[in-house]
């Protein structure tokens, strides 16, 4: 059974007085431990879909089933409990954290709020989370603004996995990173997926990255699905106009590989 099922989702915004369909009758599913990528040009609805799935905004129509229940109907304690299973990592971790907080505080919060560990136990859990994402436990005392961008994104991932989620929404989560750091973060994400069976909704404008890490891809155009399927097959042979345009626009490094 699929982990997340999105059915006929729609979201309209008002643009200068006239309605504009950011997401239009959209349906897709994600299986456990699967990476589904959403790709498309600016304004295709990628980030709106991320916010809808996270219930940060309300859809105008449609249904979202997560872990077998109607996610949009959940309220109160049931919603809070289910939200622990659905986490997020955004492009800019500095904007996602209180910049004056320490790394320890950032990771302590979800453990406390979701009642995952007792006060006495939490420092040990924080250290374990840091080690899980490849950071030294000594980093816990550092302020968020003092650490590097790559370290911050690892902390964001540590915070996301603190509540043992089954799905993480990654919205351009590696787009702002240096290429060398990006590779390490992608490897960490793949490793976590294998170990913890976490599924990813992987939002990116970069087909090269998608091809490297995603199982399936959904190509979006103006809030609708232009095409979808096996990531490598779609990118190797796109059928839709937007798919062809995205593939043609990807910067190519022409060199003779060893």
């Amino acid at each position, binding site marked *: 059974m699929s982990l997340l099922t999105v059915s006929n989702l729609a979201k309209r915004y008002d643009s200068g007085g006239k309605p504009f369909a950011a997401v239009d009758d959209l349906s897709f599913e994600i299986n456990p431990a699967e990476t589904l990528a959403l790709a498309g040009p600016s304004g295709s609805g990628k980030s709106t879909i991320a916010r809808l799935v996270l219930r940060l905004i309300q859809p105008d129509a449609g249904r979202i089933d997560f872990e077998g229940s109607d996610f949009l109907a959940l309220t109160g304690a049931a919603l809070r409990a289910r939200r622990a299973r659905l986490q997020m990592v955004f492009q800019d971790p500095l904007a996602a954290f209180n910049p004056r907080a320490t790394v320890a505080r950032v990771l302590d919060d979800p453990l406390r709020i979701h009642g995952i560990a007792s006060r006495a136990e939490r420092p040990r859990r924080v250290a374990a989370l840091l080690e899980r994402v490849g950071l030294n436990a000594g980093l816990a005392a550092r302020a968020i603004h003092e650490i590097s*961008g790559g370290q911050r994104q690892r902390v964001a991932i540590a915070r996301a996995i603190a509540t043992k989620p089954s799905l993480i929404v990654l919205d351009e989560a590696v787009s702002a990173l240096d*290429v060398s750091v*990006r590779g390490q973060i992608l490897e960490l994400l793949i490793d976590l997926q294998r170990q913890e069976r976490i599924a990813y909704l992987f939002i990116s404008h970069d*087909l*090269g990255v998608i091809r490297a890490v995603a199982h399936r891809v959904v190509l979006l155009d103006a809030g609708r699905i232009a095409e979808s399927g096996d990531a490598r097959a779609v990118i190797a042979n796109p059928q839709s106009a937007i798919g062809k345009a995205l593939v043609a626009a990807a910067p190519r490094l022409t060199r003779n590989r060893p």
Partner: protein
Amino acid sequence: MTALLSIRDLKVAYRRDGVAVQALKGVGLDVEAGERLAFIGESGSGKSTLALAVAGLLAKTVEIGGTIDWSIAKSQPSHSFAPPSVLPDISPTRGEIEPSSPPSPISNVAGGDPTAELLISPQLGEMSGRTEGGAVERQPSRPRDTIPRLGRDIGFVFQDPSSSLDPVMQVGKQIAEVIRTHLDVSWKDAYTRAKTLLERVRLPDPDSALHAYPHQLSGGQKQRVAIAAAIAAAPKLLIADEATSALDTIVQAEIVALIRRLVAEDGMTLIVISHDIALAATLADRIAVLRHGELLELGENQQIIEAPRHAYTRSLLDAHLGLDAKPMLDRQGASE
């Protein structure tokens, strides 16, 4: 090839909490007139500092050592005119700019002949007579008469067009203002040229775009406006600092094509700053690799991409995830 600028032992240090942080540690190279040169590197490599130093945009509190010499011949006769390749359709106004100026030694550079001498010389004289008046504060290490002017001699395109455009000014006025600042033309002519520029950067419906505010334009359209403003005074050198990094892939490819076309048409020298080696390779003829404020290697595209000398360059190439790279899911063995 003649060097447009010679950078020698360039050192830049920022002060942070009283401690000097070396952003550039003695970089030296020549930028050839008419070439397209990319500086690539990761965060902290000093690539943007280098661009700002060339443009004279570093704050006065920044410590700078070394030299940036422009091969702008001081002895050239002083004359001024609108380069015809930019505004071929309004040549009658040329005489109004500076009636006493001698006739142009080269009457037609339109068509973008790539000969460096031809490309650079029509504009040489424009500098010498125009270094006064409105010139921005410069780093003191440069002799006054060889100081290039940002906007006039150097066009700069930044990553975020929203922050380089005035949000409460119509874009036509913003471009016309650049033209008025650097060229001696009337507002009416400046607007005519602004419209021509908006056509050149392929903005749909340039007439209404003249009166649009930045927020009414998409990110890609705003970057086109920023490029129009950058080339409005026909600079010799165009610097694009991560100019396409905030744009989606399709728009990025369009802006790359636009910059290539404008640089070829106007015979500009191009400096590209990018973290993306593949993007750099599509825009530039030569690539300079920077790391931690040092120039690791500099070579023709083909050499850098196919036979990098430095291990770091190789690691950057390996980290590039192109559409032909081996998927990471496979590398670790367990694809579904």
